């Protein structure tokens, strides 16, 4: 190699080291700088340049130091590695890992979304004498080594829609899917199909996708990662990160900072450490299955050995996923298991039979169901828990007996009787009416009789109807009234500029008006007990899993105290309340996300409660209503324990809906981020209370990531409705009536009252 190029190479390596250590001072870096300086000086002074041996020594020193430095990498350094333009990207993998590939749906920037890359790729395998090409669908974010139009791998909603489309294609073609997660997060715009709603759709489909999915995580930025990350096998690159939020974002929230000021590097480092975002952390927590070791200081495009390892790893993982569900399991499965380290020796076809793909989906669902159990506290005693699980089985059996075995027969019988009755009525009319007419003409009704009939009519029209209700029908309509109504003061309606509403007296507003401005209909935010009592008849409901409790699984600093404070202030153990209640006689399972408990954020406890509620509704064949009083997103202090609730809960909801239930979501106040982008946003029936906001990221985050200021009403329910994200807007005072109507008219075949 020519000297100049070698020197340039070494210079680049040093620059890379400086970049990823973010300007931190370190002995190794100082040494390398000094040594390189010496060599450069000598190179300039010596005619003909330095000796090749000298360069080799320097290269060795660099290799040695890089190994040393690799052991010192902090989580934040890893973040800088994956964000570095020299980091391998999906194109490199397609070039080096697969034997051939064809990109689908774009060429460079001529693409509906260049940050989402789709390719048909294959591995060429030698089987005996033949060469077999094993097809896979490759889907993943492309960062393109910093090409501007790749948007840093931040995928727009339509990019995720494209990804979903080709997942479905792979399902149809019966080939495995390899997804690659290279994203700092999704691009938070609401334009159709909408950032949150599209991720939710992807999760919902992947929850039951009948094709094996292997995911490789390099940069797993929260919701953007989940859009392609729900997989049967999840491999993480050793220098990657997988996190609920960027360390900078966490630091901004932690420091309570406004958008225009920046958090200190120390705080960002600390957040990165606390969020437990590294590959090993995630392996330990059970959120990835395997970690693939990268070269020191992270894989770059020239690390060909690494690509070989990745190829082996991908084949191995795909083999595993397929062999696990194959009916002819024994021999090959053993072979697959034995082949760790050299996957290429085993060849198996990757197409699946129908029953195998059923098993695949089932296994995938169980896999996620089992995650994150360690991240919440179940205060329910062991015996109670066992009783509960036994009860679950009994309910399911009971429902089957009542509604399937007997119910169906009864329904058939009822329908027959109804038909018979209708027939009989016609026959009777036909026979009797002429007779009656003749009778009437012969024997005219006496005056007395007519008089009597007239009196009855008169009575009905002039006497008090339903006297049992009492004469007075007026009075307060509400079973629960906000304590704010006790204060003698007035407030202005926020829409006063456009609607000229007079100021409202608070006792009227929060009492009679249920928090609704009588002149413009603006809904002031209302406490969640209002809905519990005025909509869900909470006093007569049966709450369950009340003792399932939020905790601090990452030992996040100061979070224990904050959590205790939230528990004390709200009297809740998590942000989620689940109970059974009757809405105008229809038995229903309800899950409520309460905004006052840590902003209604979703962590492991909330997710677990939500899942159990969905399962309970499924077993009892009851409708399942999620009332979102408000949610700020996934609870960042729980890290991936929180993010993983997105696929977990979506899977639970998917199972419930596939079982023939009715899953209805009602948003109130403000609902944002992860939950909307998963188990809430995937519901086919999403409604919002007036004046609520629904979206993916708040205006501040949007301004920061996209550089655009959005209109103040960007996330308003009306915009969500016109964008197609939700399906109706309800008046708070009519929620109960509308819910009842929905219960009667929507949902699947397997509801107990159908």
């Amino acid at each position, binding site marked *: 190699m020519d000297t100049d190029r070698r020197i340039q190479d070494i210079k680049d390596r040093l620059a890379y080291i400086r970049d990823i250590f973010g300007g931190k001072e370190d002995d190794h870096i100082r040494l390398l700088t000094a040594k390189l300086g010496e060599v450069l000086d000598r190179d300039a002074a010596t005619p003909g340049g330095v000796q090749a041996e000298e360069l080799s020594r320097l290269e060795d020193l660099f290799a040695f130091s890089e190994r040393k430095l690799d052991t010192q990498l902090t989580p934040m350094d890893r973040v800088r590695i994956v964000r570095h333009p020299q980091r391998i990207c999906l194109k490199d993998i397609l070039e080096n890992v697969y034997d051939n590939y064809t990109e689908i749906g774009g060429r460079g920037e001529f693409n509906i979304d260049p940050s989402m890359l789709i390719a048909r790729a294959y591995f060429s395998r030698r089987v005996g004498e033949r060469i077999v090409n094993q097809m896979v669908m490759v889907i993943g974010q492309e960062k393109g080594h910093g090409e501007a139009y790749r948007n840093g791998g931040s995928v727009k909603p339509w990019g995720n829609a494209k990804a979903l489309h080709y997942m479905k294609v792979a399902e149809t073609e019966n080939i495995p899917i390899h997804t690659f997660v290279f994203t700092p997060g999704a691009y938070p715009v609401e334009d159709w199909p909408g950032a949150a709603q599209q991720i939710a759709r992807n999760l919902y489909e992947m929850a039951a996708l009948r094709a094996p999915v292997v995911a490789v995580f390099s940069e797993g930025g929260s919701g953007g990662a989940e859009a392609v990350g729900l997989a049967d096998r999840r491999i993480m690159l050793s220098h990657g990160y997988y996190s609920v939020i960027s360390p900078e974002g966490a630091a901004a929230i932690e420091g309570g900072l406004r958008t225009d000021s920046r958090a200190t590097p120390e705080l960002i480092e600390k957040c990165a450490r606390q969020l437990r975002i590294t590959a090993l952390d995630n392996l330990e927590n059970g959120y990835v299955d395997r970690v693939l070791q990268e070269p020191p200081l992270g894989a770059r495009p020239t690390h060909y050995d690494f690509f070989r390892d990745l190829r082996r790893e991908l084949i191995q993982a795909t083999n595993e996923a397929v062999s696990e569900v194959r009916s002819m399991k024994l021999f090959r499965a053993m072979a697959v298991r034995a082949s760790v380290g050299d996957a290429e020796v085993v060849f198996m076809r990757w197409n699946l039979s129908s029953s195998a793909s059923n098993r695949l989906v089932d296994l995938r669902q169980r896999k996620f169901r089992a995650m994150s159990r360690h991240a919440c506290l179940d205060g329910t005693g062991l015996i109670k828990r066992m009783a509960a699980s036994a009860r679950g089985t009994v309910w399911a059996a009971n429902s089957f007996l009542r509604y399937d075995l007997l119910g169906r027969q009864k329904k058939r019988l009822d329908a027959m009787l109804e038909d018979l009755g209708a027939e009989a009525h016609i026959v009777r009319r036909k026979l009797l009416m002429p007779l009656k007419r003749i009778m009437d003409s012969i024997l005219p009704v006496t005056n007395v009789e007519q008089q009597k009939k007239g009196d009855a009519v008169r009575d009905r029209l002039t006497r008090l109807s339903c006297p049992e209700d009492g004469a007075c029908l007026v009075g307060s309509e509400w079973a629960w009234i906000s304590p704010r109504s006790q204060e003698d003061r007035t407030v202005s309606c926020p829409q006063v500029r456009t609607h000229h509403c007079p100021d409202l007296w608070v006792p009227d507003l929060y009492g009679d008006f249920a928090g609704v401005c009588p002149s413009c209909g603006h809904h002031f935010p209302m406490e969640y007990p209002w809905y519990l009592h005025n909509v869900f008849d909470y006093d007569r409901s049966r709450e369950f899993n009340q003792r399932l409790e939020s905790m601090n699984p990452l030992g996040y600093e100061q979070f224990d105290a904050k959590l205790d404070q939230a528990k004390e202030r709200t009297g809740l153990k998590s942000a989620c309340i689940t109970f059974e209640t009757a809405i105008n006689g229809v038995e229903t399972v309800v899950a409520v996300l309460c905004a006052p408990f840590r902003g209604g954020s979703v962590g492991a406890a909330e997710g677990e409660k939500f899942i159990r509620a969905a399962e309970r509704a499924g077993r009892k064949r009851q409708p399942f209503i999620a009332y979102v009083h408000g949610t700020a997103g996934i609870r960042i202090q729980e890290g991936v324990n929180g993010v993983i609730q997105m696929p977990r809960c979506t899977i639970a909801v998917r199972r419930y809906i596939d079982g023939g239930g009715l899953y209805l979501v009602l948003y109130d106040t403000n609902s944002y981020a992860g939950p909307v982008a998963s188990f809430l946003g995937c519901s086919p029936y999403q409604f919002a209370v007036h004046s609520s906001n629904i979206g993916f990221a708040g205006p501040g985050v949007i301004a920061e990531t996209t550089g655009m*200021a959005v*209109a*103040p009403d960007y996330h308003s329910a009306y915009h969500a409705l016109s964008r197609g994200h939700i399906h109706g807007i309800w008046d708070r005072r009519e929620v109960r009536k509308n819910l009842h109507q929905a219960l009667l008219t929507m949902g699947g075949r397997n509801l107990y009252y159908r």
Partner: protein
Amino acid sequence: MLNIKELLDTVKASPYREIVIHAPHTGVVEFTGLKAGDRVHGRFGEYKEKPGTLLGHLTREKNKKPIHAPEKGEVGMIRTELEGKFVEAGEPLVTIKHFLTRQEVIELVLQKALYLFRAPERAKYYFVPEVDQKLKVSGKRSVKVREGMELMIVSRMKRETPLSYSGPEGIIYSVYFGRGDNVDEGEPLIGVCPEDQLSVIQDVVARIQSEWEEE
């Protein structure tokens, strides 16, 4: 023919408009310490979502409401002697000397150039729903008016009667009344530009755009 130069010169001779800020309703007034001569600004931001300079507060029935400057300008008079006192509705509180913006000058000059359809009586005026809809969706200049066309609804003493347009055919170029405002008899309601004069009017606008510097 319209003498734009002359018109502009008259405006330039007195490029200010005095805005009087009245107490919108009764209440106790507090000022924020602004003095005569201080600069203030009106609403701003890409969506005009940020309010103008805070001038003071008016508190009524325990509701403390901010009073913001509606436009850019310089504080003329400020009634600091009312600090902490109960004021009646309509009490003048602050005056702002507002340097006319380009848009305002255009409107001012256009009033001379356009055909003005005036209020026949003191009343509240509304556009008929079809026109209202069109104005909202497609903006001014999307509605063409003809002699005898039913254009507005006159609302007076709880009675509503239709009002037909009379004047030359043309497009609505300016609207001079707000929803729910009382318009005095003889005040202009809309400015209409006959189609053959459209280019002249556009010239006027372009001239002012280039000659008037205040945004």
